[in-house]
């Protein structure tokens, strides 16, 4: 599914008009714990989070996450927006909660990632 379709499903706002919304997204991971993102997410996975600090973009870039969804209508601070631009990571903002965001994307066919038993 294209990121542009996700924008439309979530009634989301892409803040930066120059962002590439043509990215293909197959799976997603939702968390406010960045170490869990680092532990479990895979390259190519969409990150859904309620945090907006600069470390969200750092985390996304370490694990080659192609795009970020900020939930609950949270607007990232300037430094986060600047780093996203520098790293070329598009982000969108939805006013939906994390639960609803995940539910809608799951219903639309976006897959979860596997968390292995250990």
């Amino acid at each position: 599914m294209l990121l542009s379709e996700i924008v439309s499903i979530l009634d989301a706002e892409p803040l930066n008009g120059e962002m590439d919304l043509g990215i293909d997204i197959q799976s997603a991971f939702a968390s406010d714990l960045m170490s869990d993102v680092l532990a479990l997410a895979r390259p190519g996975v969409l990150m859904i989070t309620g945090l907006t600090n600069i470390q969200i973009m750092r985390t996304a870039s370490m694990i080659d996450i192609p795009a970020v969804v900020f939930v609950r209508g949270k607007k990232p601070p300037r430094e986060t927006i600047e780093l996203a631009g520098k790293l070329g990571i598009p982000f969108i903002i939805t006013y939906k909660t994390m639960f609803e965001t995940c539910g809608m994307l799951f219903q639309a066919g976006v897959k979860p990632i596997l968390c292995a038993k250990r």
Partner: protein
Amino acid sequence: MSSLNSRDSFVIEREVKPLDFLSAGETASDFKETLKSLGIPADICRKTSIVAYEAEMNAVIHGGGGIIAMELEGDRITIVAKDQGPGIENVSLAMQEGYSTAPDFVREMGFGAGMGLPNIKKYSDELDIETKPGEGTTLRIVIFLKDEGGVE
């Protein structure tokens, strides 16, 4: 693509400042970009940047800052993270997922959830922790250039 000869060996060293959350992660990003520019495979670049990032965050949060170095030599990448912080009192507890001594303001940023050292272990091939209460901590982390199909 990742076969290297002695000419490619090098060490990069960076200073990490205590509690500087705006700059935290710059070192790990630099390391990743350097490895990518050398044609190192993407999964090796990713593993290295994740362990360097977790080590960097530990130095920023707990270590009172420190020095993070990346050495590329022969068949391996070695990350050495050295801080002058309080040391780790109980290493086996610190290796448990979810065990954390991080303050609340760190948790509010999405870190300090007790996954730092477990993540470093998960993504590395060798991990050695040298620590003494009151004298700081040194992590020595090795990632082999040849991917042997471990955790991606």
